[in-house]
């Protein structure tokens, strides 16, 4: 893991790490934290509407943020003439280094998707937030499979709009499913957690495989 972190740090610029990894998410989380702890979004039944709207706003932000940062750092890395891919292909350590970069990047994305749901859970005890965090991660990684073929911001942005729609739809379905489950809400929550957890692992592994396969000249 240490070497993977080293690869990630070397591959990404200081400005990206400062702004994209630390400052922007931290400012956002602090603002969310203030809002949550101030009591504006509480855990009472009547506050569910507030939580949903707040949560969807957060998700809209995180999907766009993750797609933008992906374009910033790894944009088009799966395209035929991906950034830096030729350099990695002609090196002996290219596969290992790229695997490290993408793995760390996916772990970071996962953590970022789960921080806010964690905060909501701590403040409100709203268990569905974890499922929605996992679902959002799945949508983001699923969409990244597509955007990484494009090295143009315009096309990536077009896909980002689809991602927004996908995220809203998926999380809306989650809310409806848990609501419909009635007394079986706990079972439904567990089922969705397992489902999205498995999907998150599969999509992440496929992403790492695809990037390394590109460097090795094998298509997936």
């Amino acid at each position, binding site marked *: 893991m240490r070497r993977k972190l080293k690869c990630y740090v070397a*591959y990404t610029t200081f400005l990206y790490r400062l702004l994209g990894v630390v400052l922007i998410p931290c400012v956002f989380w602090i603002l969310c934290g203030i809002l949550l702890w101030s009591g504006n979004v509480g855990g009472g039944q009547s506050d569910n509407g507030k939580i949903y709207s707040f949560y969807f706003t957060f998700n809209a932000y995180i999907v766009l943020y993750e797609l933008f940062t992906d374009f910033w750092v790894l944009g088009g890395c799966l395209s035929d003439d991906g950034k*830096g891919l*030729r350099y990695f292909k*002609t090196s*002996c*350590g290219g596969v290992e*280094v790229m695997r490290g970069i993408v793995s760390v990047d996916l772990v970071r994305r996962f953590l970022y998707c789960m921080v806010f749901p964690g905060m909501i859970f701590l403040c409100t005890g709203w268990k569905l937030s974890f499922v929605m965090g996992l679902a959002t991660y799945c949508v983001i990684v699923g969409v990244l499979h597509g955007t990484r073929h494009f090295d143009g911001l315009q096309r990536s942005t077009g896909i980002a709009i689809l991602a927004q729609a996908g995220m809203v739809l998926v999380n809306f379905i989650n809310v409806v499913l848990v609501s419909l489950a009635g007394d079986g809400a706990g079972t439904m929550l567990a089922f969705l957690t397992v489902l999205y957890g498995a999907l998150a692992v599969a999509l992440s592994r496929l992403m790492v495989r695809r990037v390394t396969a590109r460097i090795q*000249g094998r298509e997936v």
Partner: protein
Amino acid sequence: MENNYVLEARGIKKKYKGFALDIPELRIPGGFATALIGENGAGKTTLLNILSGILLQYQGEIRYFDRYTDRDREEIPDVKELIGYTAPGSYYVAQWGMREVEEISELLFRGFHRDRFEQWCRDLEIGAGGWDPKQKVHALSDGNRMKLMIAGVLARDTRLLLMDEPASPLDPLMRDRLCEVIREYLTEGDGQRSVFFSTHNVADMENVTDYAIIMEQGQVVEQGFVEDLKEKYVVVKGDAVNVEKVRDKLFTCSCGQYGFEGVCLAEMLDRLAGCDVSVERPSLTQISVAVMKHYSKAAKG
């Protein structure tokens, strides 16, 4: 006895829509600078991409250093360590600074030397400061990006440099410096190092070229040591009135109001007897243009 080819390829075939690379045999002599010459779309970049391992879907076999196969190149780390590659444009990510280029290169190649890289950056006067860790790749000119790639491969312990159009983005002074750098690289290698580069700037690179391979429409149409090629071909000049007598014997012929000039095989000179022509030793540029024109015309029928 060990033969002295740094790279041998057999039956290399790669098809694209409207283009086919077909090279039955290719041998690049070890210890020399070999130029790959050809017009746009001749297949130079495709060939270099295959040899460097960027393009992996192709037919044929490649042997490096008389020892390793192309499969070894992908499986044995030492092989890629020995091969340095520079791309047309730049393969460094645009937002990297020179520091990131250095750090990533160190992770990618065991034989990468930071001190040597920084020294080459200074020597090649990259950007404003030579070595400026914060200098971004996207802020560099095309020529400086090429110099940065050259510094990157020279900072490693390689035995073969594969360079795709290294001279194109460079100014004339830097092209001259590039020739010096290649010559130094070969001299320091004491016969163990080789350079294989593609170029459109044949005249600028001629003084460093030992061996030339000329491609046309996906095929190697001529190859040999430059001195041998200069024996094989001759430049023929004569009065305009004689042009029709010799035209069919020349590879190329350009005719003005007073005279003509063309290139033909030296062995054809006997057939020009009595035509009142003068003969000169050709430059590599003249040979290349003549051969490319000849085969291009032949292909078009």
